[in-house]
């Protein structure tokens, strides 16, 4: 049983804050839930399924359902795949709705890494019981150098350049200038990117995403509920999820799990990359986008550098408008988890509610992709394809 056409996204909300010093983590989740339900025209008592990931405090759904007073929940899911979790949740919510387990699913993400750092709290936590921990942590892996090694290898195998990677940031910045909430709104050039300080060779500061507080939420419903609502509905056409890891020592850093999650999503949706009018692609770093675009089939493996160059990802200019909210590179990467905002901007595009300067014309089919964990070791990849009512 597939999910194509069996559920709709009817409500979304992106928290406008980028530094949440005056808000607690549960409070952010609740504000987001309220915003997403209001967008859908539903109330909290309509919610019969709740989804959250590792960002939610305590035992996740248990604590958050109580805190928010979601009194009619009969289905819960706290699948954790890092920043891609919320795209996995869209898939799982679609499956649960299709199976009749629920009719109104709420997904929330919130984080406050900026506020936590200012308050002297540990920003990230990695469990010492993780089996890889003893053999990796002594060498100083961090988020940036683990993505950097992917870029270094991609450059070695395919001749990809820093200038090509820079075009990804340039495109994001062109979009972010129109987003009043974006953390970084200045348009940058390829020169700006390659002349910014080297953080971990070959990634420069402007190859890296922003760190922000806030979050986002999604409301998904059955076709029957969708028809009763006034909101423009966005159909879930297909989804895929896949783990990718170091394969017992057979390390290959030139591709991501999108190699497997993408084809599953396309097959279920019954479309091909050529049908995609807009793509939200997880952009923790520029290299994340480049490898993902290749793996999803928008270009051949190794030709990502050429594909992203010369503004090809800029809305109104290139063939594949991407991350028209400014993405994680410029707009928002709440809680160091960018999967949620990828879905939100794809929904805006299909609704025709993106900023007029970046709205893609006739955006009937859009894709959102997430990469959770580390591109340089182990990750959870997730792809979802969305469409309008006619799609």
């Amino acid at each position, binding site marked *: 049983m597939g999910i194509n056409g069996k559920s709709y996204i009817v409500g979304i909300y992106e928290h406008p804050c980028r530094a949440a010093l005056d808000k607690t983590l549960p409070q952010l989740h609740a504000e987001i839930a309220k915003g997403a339900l209001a967008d859908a025209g539903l109330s909290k008592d309509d919610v019969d399924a709740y989804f959250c990931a590792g960002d939610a405090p305590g035992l996740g759904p248990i604590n958050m359902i109580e805190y928010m007073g979601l009194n009619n929940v009969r289905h819960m899911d706290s699948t954790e795949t890092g920043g891609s979790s919320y795209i996995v949740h869209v898939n799982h919510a679609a499956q649960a709705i299709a199976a009749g387990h629920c009719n109104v699913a709420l997904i929330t993400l919130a984080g406050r890494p900026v506020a936590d750092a200012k308050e002297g709290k*540990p920003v990230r936590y990695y469990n010492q019981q993780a089996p890889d*921990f003893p*053999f990796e*942590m002594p060498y100083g892996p961090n988020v940036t150098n683990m993505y950097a090694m992917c870029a270094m290898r991609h450059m070695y195998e395919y001749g990809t350049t820093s200038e090509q990677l820079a075009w990804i940031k340039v495109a994001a910045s062109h979009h972010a200038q129109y987003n009043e909430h974006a953390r970084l709104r200045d348009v940058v050039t390829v020169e700006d990117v390659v002349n910014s300080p080297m953080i971990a*060779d070959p990634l420069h500061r402007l190859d890296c995403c922003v760190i922000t507080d806030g979050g986002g939420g999604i409301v998904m419903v059955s076709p029957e509920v969708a028809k009763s609502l006034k909101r423009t509905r966005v159909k879930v056409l297909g989804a895929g999820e896949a783990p990718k890891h170091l394969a017992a*020592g057979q390390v290959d850093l030139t591709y991501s799990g999108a190699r497997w999650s993408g084809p599953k999503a396309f097959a279920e949706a019954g479309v091909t990359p050529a049908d995609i009018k807009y793509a939200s692609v997880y952009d923790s770093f520029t290299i994340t986008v480049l490898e993902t675009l290749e793996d999803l089939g928008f270009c051949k493996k190794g030709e990502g550098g050429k594909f992203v160059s010369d503004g090809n990802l800029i809305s109104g200019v290139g063939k594949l408008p991407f991350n028209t909210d400014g993405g994680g590179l410029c707009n928002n990467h709440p809680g160091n988890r960018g999967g949620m905002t990828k879905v939100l901007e794809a929904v805006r595009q299909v609704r025709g509610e993106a900023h007029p300067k970046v709205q893609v014309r006739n955006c009937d089919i859009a894709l959102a992709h997430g990469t959770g964990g580390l591109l340089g070791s182990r990750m959870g990849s997730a792809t979802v394809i969305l469409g309008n009512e006619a799609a």
Partner: protein
Amino acid sequence: MNTDQKNKINLVVNSESKPYWEGAAKGQLLIRACNACGKAHYYPRTICPHCFSEDTAFVEASGNGVIYSYSVTRQAKPPYVIAYVKLDEGVSMLTNIVDCEIDKIRIGQKVRVKFSEAGDGYALPVFTSA
């Protein structure tokens, strides 16, 4: 993963990893191999991740390999080099490249294991130019 600086080495020695660290303390780089399917794997596990057999054992690697990929963490003081080294036995491991001019490090470069002090009598396998 929680800092831009290289962590102070704090080895996690547990029942599964202890022989690995004891080997390193004696100057041996150990990988794990499966007697059932004949394949090696890294990082070492009790049950073979290739065939799920429990008939696995530590074996000493040659200590020779080539750099598969690397990065220099520039903002750390001092900067350090993280790398995946593909061992001659066919498995790759995360490690550091040390005692080299960091701007001359290249993918494909031949490297050889050495062992750096890790406290409590233990040692950490790292690599340097062969």
